[in-house]
């Protein structure tokens, strides 16, 4: 018996079984497995941040040494651009004042006025094709409080869709990118009465940096280069966030028309992201409105 208990293969078998049980328990809604892992994340995050900062500093120092000439030339051209932009800014300020006046008079609503936007830096990226969630340095302390059934849209500096927040602890949040197989969002073609489609990640297209468009009406003529934006259907994602452009359309099966989409974002290059959270007033309105509509759209 003692020989069995100290046998390597017995230890391996028991440990594997325990780990499989832990993984299984993790699938139960509200399971404590993720909660148990949070303190480890809290401990390891500062260490990872410290090492990342050192790496970034080395990278910056190397850039300063080797990119000196290029930076000087860029600086000169930027000075010229600043002069031009100053002139445009003066004109834009006047236009902005006019817009504000008209906005109140005509009750125009800003696309994203009902959302608070929180900036965050990307802390860590995917480890491989399956361990593929990115982490950003904004959590519940910064206002990202995620409750069951909620999802917050994440955009980049150009307001293009990056993904959605799937988990948030006190200081960090985990983001599922739009190329992940589990990502789905309702979209539409960015034109008047544009057709509705569903954008989702696809295991085969992911390697080419593409997404899949499904649920396309066979009567709709989708063309290469069409711009796709979020539709706002379901209420999880705001309407009008640019997602990408159509690369190809496959009409071979009329009952299952599919298209491929080239997203605007390059996940590997994203350094800063912005989390869009409905303002408190908007949340209250949403909860009064039809609740089932909030589920199932942007999964």
């Amino acid at each position, binding site marked *: 018996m003692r020989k069995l208990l100290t*046998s*390597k293969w017995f230890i391996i078998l028991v440990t594997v079984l325990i780990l499989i049980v832990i993984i299984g328990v993790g699938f139960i809604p509200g399971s404590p497995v993720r909660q148990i892992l949070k303190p480890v994340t809290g401990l390891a995050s500062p260490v990872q941040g410290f090492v990342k900062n050192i790496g970034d500093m080395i990278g910056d120092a190397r850039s300063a040494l080797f990119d000196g000439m290029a930076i000087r030339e860029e600086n000169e051209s930027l000075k010229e651009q600043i002069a031009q932009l100053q002139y445009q800014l003066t004109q834009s300020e006047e236009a902005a004042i006019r817009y504000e006046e008209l906005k109140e008079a005509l009750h125009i609503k800003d696309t994203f006025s009902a959302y608070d936007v929180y900036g965050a830096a990307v802390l860590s990226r*995917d480890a491989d094709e*399956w*361990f593929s*969630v990115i982490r950003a340095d904004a959590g519940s302390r910064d206002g990202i409080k995620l409750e069951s059934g909620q999802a917050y849209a994440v955009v980049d500096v150009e307001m293009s869709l990056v993904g959605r927040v799937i988990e948030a602890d006190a200081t960090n949040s985990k983001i*599922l990118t739009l190329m*992940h197989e589990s990502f789905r969002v309702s979209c539409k073609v960015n034109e008047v009465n544009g057709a509705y489609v569903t954008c989702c990640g696809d295991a085969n297209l992911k*390697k080419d940096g593409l997404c899949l468009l499904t649920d396309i009406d066979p009567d709709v003529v989708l063309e290469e280069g069409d711009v796709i934006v979020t539709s706002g259907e379901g209420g999880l994602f705001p309407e009008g966030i640019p997602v990408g452009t159509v690369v190809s359309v496959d009409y071979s099966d009329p009952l299952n028309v599919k298209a491929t989409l080239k997203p605007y974002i390059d996940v590997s290059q994203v350094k800063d992201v912005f989390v869009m959270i409905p303002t408190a007033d908007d949340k209250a309105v949403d909860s009064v409105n039809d609740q089932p509509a909030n589920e199932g759209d942007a999964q």
Partner: protein
Amino acid sequence: MSRFPFRKIIVYAVYIILVFCIQVSYSSEMTLWGQIPDLMLVFTVLTAYFHGFKDGVVVGLILGLLRDCFCAPCVTGLDGQLVVTGGIGLLVMFVAASIASSFFTGRMKRNVPFSFVTVATVTIIYKMGGYMLSVMWLSMVAHAGSTPDFVDFILRSLLPQTGLNIIATIPLVFLLKFAGPYKRSKAKDRGEDRILTGEGNWVTY
């Protein structure tokens, strides 16, 4: 009475922090052929291969835990809801360490050239296992996209990943052999592994 293994713990701690931080912080800079070298997996495999089951499993479980905390796989549950999993990293690293600690280690006397074969073998097992699981899961889940094509997976995932992991083995072998947790003159007592854990009963000989 044996002395407390300060050197071993410090060296492993430093390497674990480095490997994990580089993996999750600079993965985009290391991308080649559409894949990222899996430093965590390679380090676990090499530790188990060179220094035995106990060292490999401890290193593997720590790295697996960090992997689960920082970039856990996210899957669509059977009910269509997203689930951030927990424990898959632990399982992957534990199994990798278990295999590597016994993979012809006796016959090959844990020599350096064969460590590349071990890394390649464990990478292939990991990728094939992951592929089969993802195909199985995607076919069960509603609203899931298409399942990954097998030939495409071999050509664009398995082969590049194996190649990259073999390349990543070179610096990590140097670290573990020449600046590792044990002094080179003081070889690790392999007998301990055999008595306590039965190492040597499988493919070791």
